[in-house]
């Protein structure tokens, strides 16, 4: 857990330090008072100070939570989480070229099987309902614009 917080602090510094440098490109003050860079500059500076204070606290053995720490990620959970992220990334990549329906059909079916669904009939029904059915409800009934792909589907 301590290592996790240390990594988090370094990641936060990786956001705050570039933000501080970038905010200097915007004017901190102008004729009307504080400029566009004023708030980001001070926020970044405060963020850096907080991260450094956290790192000092961690080095000195200060507070870290143990509640969530104790649970190691099982191999199955890691594989399933990876499958979810891969499926989401693929779906995002193909959403506009293929359209909502043709993207969501394999997304739902593949993910259900990857997560351990057994009944192929239930998987097929869910995939059709979640892709073509949801598209119909949102696109035609609720008038929410969803992407139609190059194949016109």
């Amino acid at each position, binding site marked *: *857990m301590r290592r996790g*917080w240390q990594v*988090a602090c370094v990641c*936060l510094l990786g*956001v*705050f330090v570039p*933000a501080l440098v970038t*905010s200097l490109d*915007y004017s901190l*003050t102008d004729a*009307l*008072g*504080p400029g566009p*860079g*004023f*708030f*980001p500059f001070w*926020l970044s500076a*405060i*963020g850096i100070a*907080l*991260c450094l*204070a*956290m790192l000092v*606290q961690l080095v000195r*053995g*200060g*507070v*870290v*939570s143990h509640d*969530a*720490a104790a649970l190691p*990620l*099982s191999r*199955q*959970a890691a594989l*399933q*989480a990876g499958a*979810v*992220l891969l499926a*989401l990334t693929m*779906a*995002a990549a193909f*959403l*506009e070229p293929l359209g*909502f329906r043709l993207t*969501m059909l394999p*997304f*739902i079916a593949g*993910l259900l099987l990857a*997560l351990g*669904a057994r009944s192929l009939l*239930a998987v097929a029904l*869910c995939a059709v309902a*979640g892709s073509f059915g949801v598209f119909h409800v*949102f696109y035609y009934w*609720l*008038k*929410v*614009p969803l992407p139609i792909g190059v194949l016109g589907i």
Partner: protein
Amino acid sequence: MDTLQHLMAGLAAAMSWQNLAFALMGCTLGTLIGVLPGLGPAAGTAILIPLTFRLDPTGGLIMLSAIYYGAMYGGTITSVLINVPGEAASVVTCFDGYQMAKQGRGGTALGVAAVGSFIGGIAATVALVVVAPPLARLALSFGPPEFFALMLVGLGLVTSLAGRSLLAGLAMAVLGLLIAMVGIDPVRGAPRFTFGIPSLYDGVGFIPVVMGLFGIAEILLTMGASDRQVITPTLTSLLPSREERRRSAGAIGRGAGIGFFLGLIPGVGAIIPTFVAYVLEKRLSKTPEKFGQGAIEGVAAPETANNAYANAAMIPLLTLGIPSSPTIAVLMGAFIVNGLTPGPFLFQERPDLVWAVIASFFLGNILLLVLNLPLVGLWARILHLPHQYVSVGTLLFCMLGAYSLQQNVFDVGVMIVCGIIGYGMRRIDLPVAPLVLGLILGPFIEKSLRTSLEMSGGDFSIFLTRPLCLALLVVGGLILLGSALRLAPAEIRESSTN
């Protein structure tokens, strides 16, 4: 027009068949979200925002509010029947609710919870009607410096109560505020942190961020989980005995009071009122040893406090524009998506909408009671759904919601990245709430600060020379100091342990 007339006009609007249908749909979906393990109210409300995109703002907000308090009730069902709280506020209900279910009194536990939630919700809404207009009038006298100080107090409260490390909470709040700076500068119109990406000119979308931090992260956290054993309630005994009614009555009254008063304070969160109500009942009980073994007061008090809190927490949002919790922040996001800014001006500019939404709370609480008592068996059956289907359904709605906000795949990418970040944060127990509140309050805080400094010609003493502003800043400082002092002993203990 006085408050009563406004309320009557609001009731008339809320009782139109469309708005009633939206409230019913919201209560049903909200209860479903609360029932489905792995979906909290914040995530559930966020992923269902797309359903309201094409509705008129009144109907959309009535539906989202109903989803919110429906989800707050739905968590009770899982607490009682599978010993898993559907959302954090229902943790306390597990203590006695599950024991009651194991003794074959699950129906009674759910019945008392439904009645308590109804009474708590109605009592808090009546208080909302009484308190909100004068509070909104008072807030109208605030200038930019007072609003700046007020929002800092709200953010400070949420941050100080969010986790076990004040520094981590503050760092998360600052990160949220910084992310809110991305996009066109609201005062000068200059682009900031956009790196030439056109999709960033409008800023980082709040909805994709929330969907990622809550929806995707929660699904990732449930990976590897197995389906749970469900205790089917005895539906023949939904109503408590005379003795149980007598013991519940006082608990419900006290729970309503605790939930309402703690709901007024931003940052308290839904867990604290339920714990306070539970502990108070245990202290007052002549048989405290029965708590944890199926005491009906142990279900009645926290459930009433939970729903009273849920309704009362709308007061800071509607009157001051301060969200008290991540779920309320999501609702605030829904207001903003609809072109409305919650706060005192909303009472002046759109009284029709505000009062229709408030009036819908009365109807929503009645609908929840009607839905939940007879349909307990149905909700219990839904608990048998394999978790794979719930997870994939949630992911589908997250994709749909993130994309349809602006018809932009970039927002889907933001959601996925925020999902990974949220998962990581939850794994190492970094608080998410301050980040979300910082993100939504960021533009308002910056605008108030800069307008204040423009008023004073760049002189910071404007925050110290206005009595109300100074008082608010002192309160904010005391809150952070109190939090630091509260957390310090824990840190010292852990240092010595390490």
